């Protein structure tokens, strides 16, 4: 059988074999002992032609209910936002998506410059001085941040707000084993970090304090002089943030964070069942040489023209090998490009406007939903575009009932905390209309 991705004809093969000086391709595999040769075919389905395969894939896709078919109030770390048309067109340019890591800068200036711009934009939004070129996702970026803190402070204790995304907490737990980090959970008051306990827990063995902003329950916590206290004990202040919120909310860089990580998914990256998204890592100039992963820097060529290269590579695994504190090699560059195009498209004014629209829609929704008897707002602190409501019934039952009305009502908090099984985490972004929010409220009234 012939394959459209394999151009070598029988004649080509013959000519190549002659040049090599063998009679068959089989001879080229003579180094592989016969005991370990596969003497049968793989048990795989027969190959499909493009037309049939597309049909099959559409069938699989159609077995899923997409966010375009349902009215969704799901968030919990992954958000449905409008993706401007230009984003898809740019990242579909194959000069970008079929390239590898820009090891040869002379023919990779496009990618390098785009990432340099991404680094600038993310640093601007978080209020930090420098950013890297991307990480796998927000959770792994956070785990890397904890490792950096341990390496810099030579301490192992990591204090973690109870309002951190539970999956980030789990990834931290897995990763912590490597460098023997000690994770200490700080309890909540209502839906925010218990600052009193947190402050008392900070000591000279503290490598880092980790909080999330807005936190997992949507709340915008204020940390006053927490950074100073952490710094007095020579620890680092690490914040996992949603960059969309930072367009209008005072960013962690302004309140003393040492490392701000998060996921740029809200910026032009489809939800895609949770990946690929785009972790980001930002920090201070002081910690610049401790950053994991690739970083693009500006320089000049032999003629003095401005250009860009991968830089500070002495930090990375291919140079440091077993002395490296991170093993990251591949990252999420194409999604960083998508985020950069998104940020360019919305720009200085537009990003504030879209963020404010998220804020307003969520606040309208909270007002509308909590006007229903039996529904109350759990958040005691201000929130951005996500909040928690409480019912007299289990949230799981409500989600199930609303599903039949083609509504994804939100994230049932009972899934992560049984004491919260009457609570629903609701996200409202700019794509939801007032009419949809009102329909959600009416439907909710009907099932309570």
């Amino acid at each position: 059988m012939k394959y459209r991705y394999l151009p070598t004809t029988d004649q080509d093969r013959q000519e190549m074999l002659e040049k090599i000086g063998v009679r068959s391709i089989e001879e080229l595999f003579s180094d592989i002992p016969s005991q370990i040769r596969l003497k049968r075919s793989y048990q795989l389905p027969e190959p499909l032609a493009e037309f049939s395969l597309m049909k099959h894939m559409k069938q699989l896709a159609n077995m899923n209910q997409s966010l375009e078919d349902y009215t969704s109030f799901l968030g919990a770390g992954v958000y449905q936002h409008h993706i401007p048309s230009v984003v898809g067109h740019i990242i579909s340019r194959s000069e970008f998506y079929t390239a590898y890591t820009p090891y040869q800068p002379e023919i990779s200036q496009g990618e390098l410059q785009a990432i340099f711009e991404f680094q600038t934009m993310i640093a601007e939004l978080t209020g930090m001085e420098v950013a890297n070129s991307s990480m796998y996702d927000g959770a792994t970026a956070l785990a890397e941040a904890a490792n950096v803190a341990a390496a810099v402070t030579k301490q192992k204790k990591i204090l973690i707000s109870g309002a951190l995304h539970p999956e980030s907490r789990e990834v931290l737990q897995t990763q912590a084993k490597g460098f023997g980090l000690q994770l200490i959970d700080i309890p909540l008051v209502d839906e925010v970090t218990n600052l009193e306990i947190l402050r008392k827990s900070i000591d000279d063995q503290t490598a880092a304090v980790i909080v999330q902003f807005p936190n997992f329950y949507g709340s915008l916590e204020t940390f006053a002089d927490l950074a100073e206290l952490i710094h007095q004990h020579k620890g680092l202040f690490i914040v996992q943030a949603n960059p969309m919120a930072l367009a209008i909310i005072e960013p962690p860089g302004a309140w003393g964070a040492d490392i701000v990580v998060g996921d740029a998914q809200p910026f032009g990256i489809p939800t895609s069942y949770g990946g690929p998204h785009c972790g980001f890592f930002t920090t201070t100039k002081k910690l610049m040489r401790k950053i994991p992963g690739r970083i693009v820097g500006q320089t000049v060529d032999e003629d003095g023209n401005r250009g860009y290269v991968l830089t500070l590579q002495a930090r990375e695994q291919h140079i440091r090998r077993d002395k490296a504190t991170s093993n990251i090699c591949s990252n999420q560059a194409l999604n960083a490009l998508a985020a950069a195009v998104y940020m360019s498209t919305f720009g200085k004014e537009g990003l504030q406007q879209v963020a404010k629209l998220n804020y307003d829609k969520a606040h309208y929704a909270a007002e509308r939903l909590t006007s229903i008897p039996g529904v109350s707002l759990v958040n005691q602190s201000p929130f951005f575009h996500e909040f928690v409501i409480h019912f007299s019934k289990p949230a799981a039952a409500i989600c199930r009932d609303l599903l039949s009305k083609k509504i994804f009502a939100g994230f049932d908090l009972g899934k992560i905390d049984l004491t919260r099984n009457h609570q629903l985490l609701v996200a409202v972004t700019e794509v939801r209309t007032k009419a949809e929010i009102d329909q959600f409220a009416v439907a909710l009234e009907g099932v309570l």
Partner: protein
Amino acid sequence: MNKNTPLIFERSRKDRIAYSLPKSDVPTYAIPDELKREGKAELPEVSELDVIRHYTELSRRNHGVDNGFYPLGSCTMKYNPKLHEDVARLSGFAHIHPYQPQETVQGALKMLAELQKYLAEITGMEQVTLQPAAGAHGEWTGLMMIRAYHESRGDFKRTKVIIPDSAHGTNPASATVAGLETITIPSDEHGLVSIEHLRQVLGEDTAALMLTNPNTLGLFEREIIEIANLVHQAGGMLYYDGANANAILGISRPGDMGFDVVHLNLHKTFTTPHGGGGPGAGPVGVKNALVPFLPSPIIEQNEDGTYHLKDGLLQSIGRVKSYYGNFGILVRAYTYIRTMGSDGLKKVSENAVLHANYLLASLAEAYDVPYKGYCMHEFVFSGKRQKEQGVRTLDIAKRLLDFGIHPPTIYFPLIVEESMMIEPTETESKETLDQFIDVMLQIAKEIEHEPELVQDAPHTTVVKRLDEVRAARKPVLRWRKED
């Protein structure tokens, strides 16, 4: 083309916009003063055409597989089928949320469950996790499982990972991040694992041996059966770095070679695009003994034929990434396997190996071959002879840019002086290979007769060689608005 492309910030003009937002249909709510951002992030203000022109211009300053030959060793820069891009963008794949009820994502779960099965069959493993986001992430996941396995047996002294000196840098780095120590063993005179050295370092502290097979020199570890026996006799596990799996599809399975853990780079062997550095995916397959340690979650089929996400078992290493891996990449790899089937995948490796040997045979007189014999899907030249003529491998790489060819991987593996690692892949035609041969022979001649032509290369690119020392000494990692 312009020598300098302005930064998008430099194109910015106040009051231009490239976005459209609906008029708000809800009241305005005030942000509390203490939370309000002071000052705006310095993002550009440009029109939609400005955005398009800017990024189009940048794309023209970039070389991808679609632009030309890309024989970057160990990276498997093969053609990225266009169908996969269309499939990944189907609404039912691109716009589903990780926390949707599982009954609303049965198509996604079915695809993932089948992919787990296909990859287990291809690698000869019992089960596969699709969680890891990249090869290095897979390495670390595999090593964490190996560590958990030993510790579950009360064996806490197995802290050493044996790694050949020809290995990728991610191998030792992954060991470190998994809390294990690396023992590097030298390669023998054939470029293979030195059995003698391996025997010396194996012992009660051995957690694992990590091997790339074929190795980074493009050579198959002929003694793999003995190597596996030795490692297992010592109580260690055998880890397969799948970076070079493009050589063995349908030919030999890591599970049958004796490996206990395998990661695959779907962005290499299974055609998902490299995206300028990512996203990729690094699924990990394991034999029975390691199944209890797989990360959460695994996709399983129910008795009624539906699918569900299953949390890791009691001994699971936990979660290694949010949600369910790089789903959009997994969809593409699945599509590829369904295009090729068993027969097609075998032809992939046959042609990849044929192409590499054809280049090797055609260029072996002009460039030094450090290890004789047939290669697998890639091979390594040494630029030693050329260095003696005053031209370094870096110069040869830069000269290739003038011909529109992406250079091979250079100065890796570290054990070959002035190394050039060449991987043509199966998707290139003989004409492309012949053109590469002609160019490499021409450069060899230039080195003899006009070395400065090579030393001063590239001549045709948008920028000349860049000052990397300056970039690292005085780092400029972002643009700043001038006051």
